[in-house]
């Protein structure tokens, strides 16, 4: 009987281990195109994601303002248009699983720079923390991978 109970506990622990295995994943990357001069970008317009119901655009605007940039309510006469995709997940409570922010050329829609962060449940960050991480990586990280890696 004791042996049987021990077996049950081992199987339960293994099941829990398998279920929790993917729960602590962190990823944060940023790439800037070789033709982009980030220092020339001063004025942004944040375009609200059509599926965003949590006003992540406001968090991005606030963070950009805090970083010293200017925000415009329209797409005209800006240096870049900011688009984003936020993905939320549920684990006891809702949390932001992934955030991708892209700075685009206002004329051609060309992606000038992109940042992406992913934090699964056990290493979850607040939405403000996610926005901060992505924008900081785009503008200040020295570990950007891609066309700008030699910049």
């Amino acid at each position, binding site marked *: 009987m004791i042996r*049987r109970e021990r077996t049950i506990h081992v199987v339960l622990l293994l099941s829990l281990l398998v*279920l929790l295995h*993917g729960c602590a994943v962190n990823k944060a990357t940023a790439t800037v*195109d*070789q033709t982009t001069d980030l220092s020339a970008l001063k004025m942004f317009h944040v375009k609200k994601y059509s599926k965003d119901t949590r006003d992540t655009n406001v968090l991005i605007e606030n963070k950009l303002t805090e970083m010293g940039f200017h925000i415009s309510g329209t797409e005209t006469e800006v240096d870049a248009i900011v688009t984003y995709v936020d993905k939320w997940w549920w684990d006891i409570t809702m949390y932001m699983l992934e955030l991708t922010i892209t700075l685009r050329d206002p004329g051609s829609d060309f*992606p000038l720079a*992109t940042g992406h962060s992913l934090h699964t449940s056990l290493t979850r960050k607040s939405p403000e923390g996610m926005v901060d991480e992505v924008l900081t990586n785009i503008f200040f990280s020295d570990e950007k991978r891609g*066309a700008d890696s030699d910049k």
Partner: protein
Amino acid sequence: MKFLLIFSSVMRSEEQIVINSHLRFLAACAMITLLAGCASPASRQELVVEETSFGTRHPYSVFVIAGGGGETDATGYTNISNEDLEGAIKESIIKSGLFSSVAKTHDADYKLSVNLVSMSKPMFGLSFTIDMEMSWSLVNTKTGAAVMRESIKSSHTTGGGEAFAAVTRIRMAVERAAEKNIRQGLQKIAGLPLN
């Protein structure tokens, strides 16, 4: 007394059956979770454009660099690594002869930068559609002029009958969408009047 012994024996065997079935159920759950989460990265070979020629051969060397990709966790989503994206673009250029050579260092006539900007990640369904966007820029290293700046979007759907496992159908859709993107990008470069 004899009745009690028989009753106790029957109860014990029923209890054992219930516990065994619970054990089997838990083992099956663990196995399903393991199998369902076994995502594999996109294969470099599947991203290579098998085009003999784009009808153009630019007499210049090109240096290629790719970014925006990432590693694939076993329990995560299929992704394309930067190394595989870069390698597939280089191999596609060599196979098609689009440029006279692919340089290993920055010392080339042109520098091609390709960044994976976004990729949709459907989770459930029989068929999976992957939408992908990559930024392509080509710079003349001598003049520093950008001769191409394009946002290229591609998409591919794998049907439910194309593979048994969902993770395989997702990987196939990612590979095909990336291959289409590389094909479009190289076709655009083939149409450029480089000098």
